[in-house]
């Protein structure tokens, strides 16, 4: 049963009242003026002659005074930024507490909706599986919850191909990638495909498995392979070193992305606040 953290309400309310330099994010949907949607922003898109189906209120009366002809002013459409929430549903997520994982995503989604953002959810493993587009308003949170509840965590992860696919298909500006990042091909440079990226790394440290010094069989559900090793002091050191090297790929600060490493025992609320704050950095 997926619920929304009860603190989300307060977080979104407090954040909306927070004094910020600029209201963010507002963006114009397309970079190509031809395809820019007309709207109600202050950015002038076009001037054209009045047509019978046009609203009279859109007639530029000053221009009419100078030219004695009816012209209509068109402005670009303005809307809050759409966030793409990319949800990893590969089998490796089974290591993690899936309820925690889903509640986290649902709560983030709820906060964004509460802040009048539009969210698109994309579930993937080695390919894009399901999408849930254009969710607006917090009253539609049930769509998000339904989407998350329908997920099955199986198959392997191929983050690179999925990110390329999402980038080419939806051209998202900002993504929030919910994943354990267990993809050996993943490199942070791939995130340059997006203007802003938020890596929410759900990581269970191998030390938290509470392994005893004994022979240990580690099963990878994605690869459907087993590694049998003697988890002794020597191998423990080696495992921890490999884990450190693995994590060090994402741990550094980058302009391209914001990185959050989340343990399934951690309090979620501080992450919500940090993510929101990162939006305005």
């Amino acid at each position, binding site marked *: 049963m997926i619920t929304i953290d009860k603190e989300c309400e307060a977080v979104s309310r407090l954040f909306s009242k927070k004094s910020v330099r600029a209201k963010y994010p507002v963006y114009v949907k397309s970079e190509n003026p031809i395809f820019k949607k007309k709207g109600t922003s202050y950015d002038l898109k076009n001037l054209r002659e009045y047509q019978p189906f046009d609203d009279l209120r859109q007639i530029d009366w000053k221009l009419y005074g100078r030219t004695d002809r009816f012209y209509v002013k068109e402005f670009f459409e303005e809307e809050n930024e759409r966030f793409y929430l990319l949800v990893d549903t590969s089998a*490796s997520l*089974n*290591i993690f507490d899936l309820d925690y994982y889903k509640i986290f995503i649902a709560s983030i989604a709820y906060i964004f909706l509460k802040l009048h953002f539009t969210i698109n959810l994309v579930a993937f493993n080695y390919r894009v599986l399901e999408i849930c587009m254009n969710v607006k308003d917090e009253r539609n949170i049930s769509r998000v919850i339904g989407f998350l509840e329908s997920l099955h965590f199986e198959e392997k992860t191929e983050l690179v191909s999925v990110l390329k696919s999402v980038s080419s298909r939806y051209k998202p500006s900002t993504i929030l990638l919910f994943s*354990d*990042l*267990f*993809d*050996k091909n993943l490199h942070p440079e791939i995130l340059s495909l997006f203007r802003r990226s938020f890596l929410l790394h759900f990581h*269970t440290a*191998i030390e938290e*498995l509470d*392994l*005893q*010094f*004994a*022979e*240990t*069989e*580690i*099963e*990878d*559900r*994605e*690869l459907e*392979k087993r*590694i*049998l*090793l*003697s*988890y*002794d*002091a*020597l*191998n*423990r*050191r*080696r*495992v921890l070193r*490999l*884990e450190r*090297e*693995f994590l060090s790929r994402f741990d550094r600060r980058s302009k391209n992305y914001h990185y959050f490493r989340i343990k399934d025992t951690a309090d979620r609320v501080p992450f919500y606040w940090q993510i929101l704050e990162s939006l305005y950095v």
Partner: protein
Amino acid sequence: MFSFFSYLFLLLIPILLILIVRLKRRQRVIYSHAFLRSFQDKKLLDYLLRTFQIYYDVFFDLLLAVVLSMFLAQIVTFTPRRTAICIDGSYSMIQGDKQTALERAISLLGEGKISKDRYRLFLLAWDTGRGRNRLFRLKEIKLPTETDQAILARAVRSYTHDLQERYTFHNIALSTLQGLFDRGFRRVIFVTDRFPRGNTNLEIIEVGSTPESFFQPSSVSYDFSSASFQMLLYRFNYEKPIAVLRYEEMLGDYKVILASEQRIPGSDLTLIEIKEEGLYRIIGPGMDYIYDLKIPQITAAVSGRYSRIVADVLPQIENGGFQILIADLPYRGETGRTLSKKIRALGRYPHRYITLIPQRYTKATPLIHPLERSFSQPSYAELPPEIAELSMESTRLFFQDPERTRDGQTPLVYLSYLEADHATVFSNPSAQGLRGWKASPRHSGITSLVYTRQKDTIPINLSAQEFFPVSLQQDLVLEPRQINPLPYFLILLIIYLAKLAFLIRFRLGY
């Protein structure tokens, strides 16, 4: 006996049980291999190394089990297939008028006639320092490659002489040869002058001269029923009648008497009956036996008398250069002068003399002890009580029929003889014994060694077997060493240390 596989099977049971328990208790976790891929084996070597890291203890346990099974099943014995040749270092080996048995042994060894294989040479001799038999390692004998027999004989004699100088040829205990098997020799050749007849796993090379015919007194006792002395003699191919002489006061010499002699059927023993008491002489081939036979109604009180008598007679005997054996001759009613006269009468005969002492004299106060001790210390005529029993032990009588060997009934308490010119062979004051024991020069001679420490005294007498070529029926089957445990111990130690090293490396990460 279990076979190798039986032992291995038994030893594998606990290892398998441990493996099963380990398998049951194996940790199984689900985790991504994203950063654990390096644990996946790319090569066979990787697989072997990783498997070794997991199962190294089982691997070493298996090795230990295999080595232990080999040890228990004695598959590999680690015993060298070497040959040991051991020379008998008993007193009889250096006896002989022309050529001693030791010289013959050295000659054979030098000519390589005993073994064509490579061998190690030992001498089983008496260790005066330790007071027991010991195997001495000898260097290989190399005789000159001369064809001249005289040169060869001189070399052999020289080598023999060196051996006699360095080692003590006294009693030997054949059981000491077990030490050669214990050292891992599989073939032991024992070069001796004569060997007890019986089963043995030694290879015996007898280099003793064929014993000439002889007879040997076994016992003398007084039979009250027939009122005669019963003298039992053991004959060895000695078919001649035995001459019995009695000392005649009138003549001042010995005179042949008639003594009834009868063979004991089924044995080589002869019984001689002598009616009268007196000083008797039995003439044997190269050896005379002197008996002072007295009807056992006289209680001897002989303290100190013997020593005085010997002291009187001693200078003349020594000057005579004879091989002398002196008896206990004290008896009441005879003066020392008379007795000296009687003994001096023996001096004409260049023979060895054996004295047999009637037991009745020694029952309460043993008087008999190695004669060379009497020579050097006449005052010791009375044996100290603490060594009296030990001295008695060496007087066991041996018969052709081993079942008849006994101590009781016999009046013989000591058999010995002396070669006066060798009296100082063992009188070496520097001979150190066991932890404070030393062979006392006062109490040592050819036929005995006396070990003293403060008040304790242990006399070790030459056994009668060294003088009489009597071979008893005796089995001597020594136990060959089945297995040499030292290499196994070292292998097991190395395996265990290796296991420990890997344990430290893996478990503690050093």
